[in-house]
């Protein structure tokens, strides 16, 4: 057991958790106090140091891990209990608590703590000028830190149980934050929907965990991942357990068919969308599936779990295409990003599915067999690494995209407010009276999130536009930027599996088509927002003003761009290799690293994969954006000029649009388009099912309970009351009748005595 910094790793989780009540109560006490509002930013500045501390601590842990390979830290037993009857494999009788650190943990720990910190900074800029929630933002920060604690806890947990516990904690915070604008019915609805949908998945996750516990007698990674233990387990049961857990992941990561909550979740404040619904929480599902890797990779499970791997990949494939298609028609900036998130997560699922399939089918455990390099090993490592790398890239890029969109929305909102402010005669800006009037503004038709109100912002919001551009490029997989390094690996490996297992053609084709679709909708979004002429008065008056927002945007832009360095550091291999000898700054240098990457992804010895890879790159980077440009491209207004690195793109789009532009109204009015606008009717059907079936059934049940179950009792009561009246009617009041009854009684007595004798 390693000592040192890992002893303190628990504070990464505890610090935010402990600050949660502090902010809540401080906020309650100082609500409306100017010092609190202005200087402490209603708690934002209380939360920030904590998040920074958490990040620093995380970095220390990460650095220590890379140096010394920390492993796990057992803190103690949480619950212990008796378990007399035991199956063959059950020995333990406790739930433990501890910290577990390996490559995957470290990767996600960095993502989580880094983004939490950045988004905290972003929120200070975004929330404090959020007029809707004057003096209520401490609630936001409190819930925010609690969420961070949940996320970090989930990452650091040393068992599936604690993973689940923090997972639920995140779910709660997600619920609270989506419903942050609680007074809006749509937000309330969205919050409920998010919690319920993920809850459905969670139920299965719990069942999966329970089955897993019954198989292993523990949920600790150390026990579950021990190949000696795995060898004792029945593969069929294990597959069921993992399948159940996967349903939980589907819910959390918004995959088909539990995806409906994510777009609605955009009702929350934008920092929340950025952090929870793009960068961190939705990755939890992926993380869970990635955590199953050792089980799939175990020798004793060889070939037994391929069905599950197929299911994972297929769910991913379907969602990828579906979400991308829906993203085509979305007008709301954040909704586009939401569907994009869904689609990209689906990519990762497909990648993980493929990697798990490979791990389960190949003899990959040894890196070298008889001194020769084991290519199976390399393939598996690259496949798994690609998926995780994409997770990393996507988190960074999507976090940034959301923040950028937040920036746009924020400024749009402000510009709108300013415009209207000129028309109104309200002098006081801060009074409560005004507060109420303010809401009237929101009731007008203006929607700061609608892309039809934007356009031409590239020159007005240069930082934002740049960040958006880089982020989009990363998602699309433009060469050398961000996702490029990981996406192709996913596609290639999906096809690799498809060649061996024909069922995989479905997900493999999906991700390939998805690449083109991604290119289209991301470009469409950027062009509609930043290129062309402003489509509304408001858009003309937009400009960036708070300093808090650009900081994270710039930072993340650089991180995204620096993927190439990570790729060079053989991130892919490092993150996926369970053996410890692969340390981060490997024996090979940067260039060698890149070569490694190329060697295994881009210069595939197999001709099929070689061609495939470049087709993918081509359709993703050229076909998709090209179509988007043809439809939505356009030059900026006269006199406006974007930054030099964006101007060529705008010009190009303008040219493509002029030359190749075509009318797509036939498509736009087609049934399919409408169906996509209606999100393929999933929400409608789910709502209908809930309202008609479940609610109907519940009402019938309640009525049944009242009328029949309770009614039985009441009937007994009323019947006996009636009987009572009947019986008392025999007491006629006439003494003659009484005597007659007595005489009859005498007869009865004799009858009975006679019977007795």
């Amino acid at each position: 057991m390693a000592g040192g910094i890992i002893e303190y790793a628990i504070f990464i989780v505890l610090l935010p958790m402990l600050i949660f009540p502090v902010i809540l109560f401080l906020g309650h006490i100082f609500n409306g106090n100017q010092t609190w509002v202005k200087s402490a930013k209603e708690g934002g500045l209380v939360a920030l140091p904590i998040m920074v501390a958490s990040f620093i601590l995380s970095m220390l842990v990460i650095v220590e891990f890379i140096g010394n390979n920390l492993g796990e830290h057992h803190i103690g037993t949480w619950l212990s209990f008796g378990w007399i009857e035991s199956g063959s494999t059950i020995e333990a009788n406790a739930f433990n608590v501890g910290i577990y650190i390996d490559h995957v943990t470290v990767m996600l720990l960095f993502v989580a703590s880094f983004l939490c910190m950045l988004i905290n900074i972003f929120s200070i800029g975004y929330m404090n000028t959020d007029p809707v929630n004057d003096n209520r933002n401490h609630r936001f920060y409190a819930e925010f830190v609690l969420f961070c604690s949940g996320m970090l806890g989930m990452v650091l947990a040393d068992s599936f149980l604690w993973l689940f516990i923090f997972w639920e904690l995140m779910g709660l915070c997600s619920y609270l934050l989506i419903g942050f604008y609680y007074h809006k019915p749509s937000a309330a609805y969205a919050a409920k929907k998010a919690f319920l949908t993920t809850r459905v998945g969670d139920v299965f996750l719990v069942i999966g965990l329970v089955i897993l516990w019954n198989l292993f007698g523990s949920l600790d990674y150390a026990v579950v991942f021990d190949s000696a233990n795995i060898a004792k387990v029945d593969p069929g049961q294990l597959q069921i357990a993992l399948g159940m857990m996967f349903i939980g992941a589907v819910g959390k990561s918004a995959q088909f068919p539990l995806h409906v909550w994510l777009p609605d979740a955009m009702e929350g404040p934008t920092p929340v969308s950025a952090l929870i619904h793009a960068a961190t929480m939705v990755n939890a599902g992926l993380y869970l599936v990635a955590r199953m890797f050792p089980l799939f990779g175990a020798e004793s499970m060889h070939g037994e779990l391929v069905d599950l791997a197929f299911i994972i990949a297929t769910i991913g494939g379907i969602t990828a295409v579906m979400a991308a298609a829906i993203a085509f028609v979305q007008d709301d900036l954040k909704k586009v990003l939401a569907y994009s998130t869904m689609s990209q997560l689906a990519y990762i699922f497909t990648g993980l599915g493929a990697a798990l399939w490979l791990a389960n089918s190949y003899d990959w455990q040894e890196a070298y067999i008889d001194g020769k390099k084991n290519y199976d090993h390399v393939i598996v490592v690259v496949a798994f690494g690609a998926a995780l790398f994409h997770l990393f890239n996507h988190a960074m890029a999507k976090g940034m995209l959301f923040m950028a969109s937040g920036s746009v929305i924020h400024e749009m909102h402000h510009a709108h407010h300013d415009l209207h402010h000129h028309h109104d005669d309200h002098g006081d800006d801060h009074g409560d009276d005004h507060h109420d009037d303010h809401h009237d503004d929101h009731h007008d038709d203006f929607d700061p999130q609608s892309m039809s109100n934007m356009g031409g912002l590239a020159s007005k919001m240069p930082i934002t536009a740049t960040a958006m551009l880089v982020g989009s490029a990363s998602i699309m997989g433009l060469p050398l930027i961000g996702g490029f390094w990981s996406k192709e690996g996913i596609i290639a490996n999906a096809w690799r599996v498809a060649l061996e297992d024909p069922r995989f053609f479905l997900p493999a084709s999906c991700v390939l088509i998805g690449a083109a679709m991604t290119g289209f909708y991301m470009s469409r979004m950027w062009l509609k927002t930043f290129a062309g002429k402003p489509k509304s008065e408001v858009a003309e008056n937009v400009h960036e003003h708070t300093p808090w927002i650009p900081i994270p945007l710039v930072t993340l832009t650089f991180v995204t761009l620096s993927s190439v360095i990570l790729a060079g550091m053989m991130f892919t291999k490092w993150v996926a290799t369970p053996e410890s000898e692969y340390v981060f700054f490997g024996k090979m240098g940067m260039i060698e690293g890149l070569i490694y990457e190329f060697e295994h992804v881009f210069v595939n010895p197999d001709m099929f994969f070689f061609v495939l890879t470049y087709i993918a790159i081509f359709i993703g980077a050229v076909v998709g954006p090209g179509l988007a440009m043809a439809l939505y491209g356009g030059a900026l207004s006269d006199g406006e000029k974007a930054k030099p690195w964006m101007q060529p793109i705008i010009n190009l789009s303008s040219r493509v649009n002029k030359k190749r532009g075509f009318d797509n109204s036939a498509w736009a009015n087609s049934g399919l388009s409408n169906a996509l606008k209606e999100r393929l009717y999933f929400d409608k059907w789910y709502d209908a099912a809930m309202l008609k079936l479940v609610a109907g059934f519940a009402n019938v049940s309640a009525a049944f309970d009242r009328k029949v179950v309770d009614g039985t009792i009441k009937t007994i009561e009323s019947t006996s009351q009636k009987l009572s009246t009947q019986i008392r009617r025999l007491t006629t009041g006439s003494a003659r009748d009484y005597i007659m009854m007595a005489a009859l009684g005498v007869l009865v007595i004799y009858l009975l005595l006679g019977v007795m004798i």
Partner: protein
Amino acid sequence: MIDPAWVSVLSAILFTIGLWGAFTRKNAIIVLMCLELILNAANLQFVAAAIQHGDASGWVYAIFAIAIAASEVAIGLAIFLAMYGQHETISLDDVNLLKN
């Protein structure tokens, strides 16, 4: 001497008539008379049994029973009188204020 069994039969007949009358007649006085019939049936039986068993206590019982019957009639008449005072009838069927 008459067989005591016949006395028992007689008393049984008296008893039956008395009981029958008690719940078929409406007039309280007649019911009272029927009551006397029952009591007398008992007395007859006591006496007959005393003779049969050669035991004197039967006679004593009968005499006591006669006394009891007398006081019973006295009380009964008094109560019926009171009833008549209030209800102005001694028909048992018509006195049915209290019922159910």
